[in-house]
């Protein structure tokens, strides 16, 4: 088992969400590949953890496996996921259903696809109350209107009868968030919640998420490829690459002094850091195919520091400093340089 990102020193007690050594295999036409390889982290209530990485790095797969929503081609083959102390890996369907909503909830990226196109939104928002609280249709509808008011839908009573295609993108995302927080979950996973939206709307949605998080004391897992979102909204960050965690720790520390070449390359490629008149630095090359992940360090092909050792031996995720960890043979050198 690889060590998880260490819990933040400010929080006490058990994290609301603990993931350890999570492994997810994908059954593809050309054989089985490992999409998530020994990912671990923990999030306390009221804290925000960002899962950061390029598309295809396994961050969404991690989120889906925590939520138990993997497609049949994917399979959790190892590790542990505990939400509020309950082990989710290997939990029966019925047991898991009881937790889905009141304990653990998820917000998806594409709100138009994530809302049922043929049901009025009011009914979709009322559904968690119908399923878990056994409320009557009328009571649940009332709750749905309250939720819509809370997330800032104008004229909620009227709009509850509208269908998803009759809302704007931002409003749809608000509805989706409302649905996810309906039952005050302990843990909320937000999978690229703002990617499909305009920049101005993005900020509103992120503010809404943060307000709701504070108000309901939720642990928030923010899945994103957007460094700015991480910098602005997350307390801790877990950087993923090719299904592996390469670096983890408090955002401020990780971003100011990265201990993994990948994190550093990512940060360097942000336009604000670029020097005028020079080409914008980018991470050279592209991530390995999951079927061709090298046996040594996963990042070796694109790493400026890579040597023989990186080709032979995969660096373990080792603690570096008080609350941080990194998976690089050169993390010490990086800190000095």
């Amino acid at each position, binding site marked *: 088992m690889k060590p998880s990102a260490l819990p933040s020193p400010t929080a006490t007690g058990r994290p609301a969400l603990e993931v350890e050594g999570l492994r997810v295999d994908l059954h*593809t036409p*050309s*054989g*089985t590949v490992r999409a998530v390889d020994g990912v671990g982290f923990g999030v306390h209530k009221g804290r925000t953890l960002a899962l950061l990485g390029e598309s295809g790095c396994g961050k969404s797969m991690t989120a889906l496996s925590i939520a138990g929503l993997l497609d049949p081609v994917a399979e959790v083959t190892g590790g542990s996921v505990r939400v509020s102390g309950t082990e989710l890996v290997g939990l029966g369907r019925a047991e898991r259903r009881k937790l889905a909503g009141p304990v653990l909830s998820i917000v998806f990226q594409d709100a138009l696809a994530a809302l049922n196109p043929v049901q009025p939104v009011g009914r979709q928002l009322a559904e968690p109350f119908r399923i878990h609280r056994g409320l009557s249709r009328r009571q649940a509808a009332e709750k749905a209107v309250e939720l819509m008011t809370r997330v800032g839908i104008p004229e909620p009573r009227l709009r509850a009868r509208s269908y998803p295609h009759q809302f704007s993108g931002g409003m749809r995302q608000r509805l989706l968030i409302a649905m996810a927080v309906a039952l005050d979950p302990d843990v909320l996973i937000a999978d690229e919640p703002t990617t499909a939206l305009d920049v101005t709307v993005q900020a509103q949605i992120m503010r809404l998420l943060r307000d709701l998080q504070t108000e309901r004391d939720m642990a928030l897992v923010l899945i994103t490829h957007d460094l700015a979102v991480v910098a602005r909204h997350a307390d801790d960050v877990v950087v993923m690459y090719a299904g592996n965690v390469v670096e983890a720790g408090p955002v401020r520390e990780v971003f100011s002094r990265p201990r993994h070449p990948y994190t550093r390359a990512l940060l360097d490629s942000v336009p604000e850091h670029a020097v005028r008149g020079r080409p914008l630095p980018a991470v050279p090359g592209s991530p390995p195919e999951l*079927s061709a992940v090298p046996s040594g360090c996963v990042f070796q092909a694109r790493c400026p520091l890579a040597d023989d050792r990186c080709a032979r031996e995969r660096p373990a995720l080792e603690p570096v400093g008080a609350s941080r960890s990194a998976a690089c043979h050169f993390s010490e050198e990086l800190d000095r340089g």
Partner: protein
Amino acid sequence: MSAPDDRTSPAATSPRTRPPRWWRLLGRDRGAAAAAVVLALVFLVALFGRLFLGDRAVRQDLRASLRPPSLDHGFYGLLGTDVLGRSVLARLVDAAATTLSIAVPAVLCSLLIGSALGLWAGYHGGMRENVAMRVADVILSFPSLLIAVVVLYVFTPSAMNIVLILAVARIPVYLRTARAEAAELRSRLFVDAARTFGTPASAIIRRHLLPIALPTLLTVATLDFCFVMLTESSLSFLGIGIQPPEVSWGLMVAQGRQYLQTAWWIAVLPGLAIMLTTVSATVLAAWVRLATDPGQRWRLTLPRKRRGERAAVPPEMIA
């Protein structure tokens, strides 16, 4: 990419290190492979069977009337004889040729005309699209058997006329499919790009639309092959399709119907032949649809019980 009636034996796959070929995938799906073999056999029999038959299918022998299937009367007595003492086996082979000589040209005609019209209408849109769709509606909202009955009554029920009617009746199916594909593709960037280069519409349709629509159209054609075969059989059964002395499977069922209680094999065997062929075509069509859909293709490669076992083929697609 894969002709639905291709007859490569799935057993002949060699373990070469290439991306999974369609016949490798076919080999993995036992049902589809069996269907392909059955269809191949039917086509072979229809193509070459008559060469070996001589006059067996029409030679009467009243002493041999209504013999049940048995091993005692040589190869041609294997499946029994009809009331005139003709070999049922020989007639089945003869009928296979007739049935396919109607079904295959009819399917090809409607496939060609329907696809061409559909791609053209879908690509251009507007009025042309509207007219084409309304024509398709008209043809489809009229029960095909009834068109056939009326037309075959006006003109003589020759094989040629049956082919024509069936082709016309099925054109809308391809027209609709091709139009839907073309209408979806016409707004794609690569089509726009081709248009900005001044590529003429006919070339865009041929080079850009057709290759993408073709797998779907072939799947539809495979399925439609069943429909055409069944309609021809129904017509022949009702007495307005193939006329004696020619013989088709549907006609054989009709002729055997009156001997149902005394000589079941005359009506049962040709029906079984129809069913075997159409079921095979359906199974194969379902497989082709799966194999040509990149979003569904992985399903074919999931080992049924040995999940997680590493396949012996190198990477081609990562979900």
